[in-house]
């Protein structure tokens, strides 16, 4: 059941993003930035957490889930760290994915041949 929900809801998010791109002619970068911003706002309004509980990876794997992680990580640190969490909190939940992409990207650039 969790696999079916992940497929349907994750697929639906991607479908909506594709439709917005095709109908507005926006570039992928604009769609991606918009997705993260909307995910973060939805997280701030408390909408995204129940959505993620329902959809599992269908909600956390697409980019709006990245915005959700930024906000939920920050808000989780805030009771402990106070205002400092405004600057330190967001990376706690998302740092692993960002750093993994950076490290694998650097490794890939070192081991592959430069394309002319």
């Amino acid at each position, binding site marked *: 059941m969790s*696999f079916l929900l*992940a*497929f*349907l809801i*994750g*697929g639906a*998010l*991607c*479908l909506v*993003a*594709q*439709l917005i791109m*095709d*109908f507005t002619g926006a570039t*992928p*970068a604009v*769609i*991606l*930035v918009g*997705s*993260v*911003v909307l995910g973060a*706002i939805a*997280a*701030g309004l408390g909408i995204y957490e129940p959505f993620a509980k329902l959809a*599992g*990876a*269908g909600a*956390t*794997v*697409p*980019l709006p889930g*990245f915005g959700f*992680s*930024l*906000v939920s990580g*920050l808000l989780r640190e*805030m*009771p402990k760290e*106070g205002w400092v*969490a*405004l*600057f330190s*909190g*967001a990376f706690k*939940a*998302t740092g*692993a*994915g960002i750093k*993994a*992409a*950076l490290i*694998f*990207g*650097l490794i*890939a*650039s070192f*081991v592959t041949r430069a*394309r*002319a």
Partner: protein
Amino acid sequence: MEPKEYRQRVRRMEQPRPVARNALWAFVVGGLICVVGQGVQSGLMSLGYDQESVKAPVSIILVFLGSLATALGLYDRLAKLGGMGANLPITGFANSVVAPAMEFKQEGPIMGTGARIFQVAGPVIAYGLLTAFVVGLVRFAISGGKP
């Protein structure tokens, strides 16, 4: 030629965007990537990770898979078919980092790979962090940070 007339002519010459087919493939590819993510998550949780501690390793593994597929030249093909279905998941985030890292290698490790590696992911991270900051500020102003 008048600009208006030119735009009309361009519109006539343009291939109509296959909107329905793009949307269907985005749905299928994006959905399947999320199923892979759900599989990784379920697998790790059966190894003893809980709902919170599983998040980081799931991200790392999906980023690894997306990076590997990018390095092998497979992810570009998937993105051509799936569009946003390949770009929106975190594997597409990995692709957006790894692809320029490889592509700009010829311009050197610092100003090529180093400077360009976040050329798509950078804006995403920047505006994501800004939004999170504003959301946090609002929460802080309302409740002093208490949940």
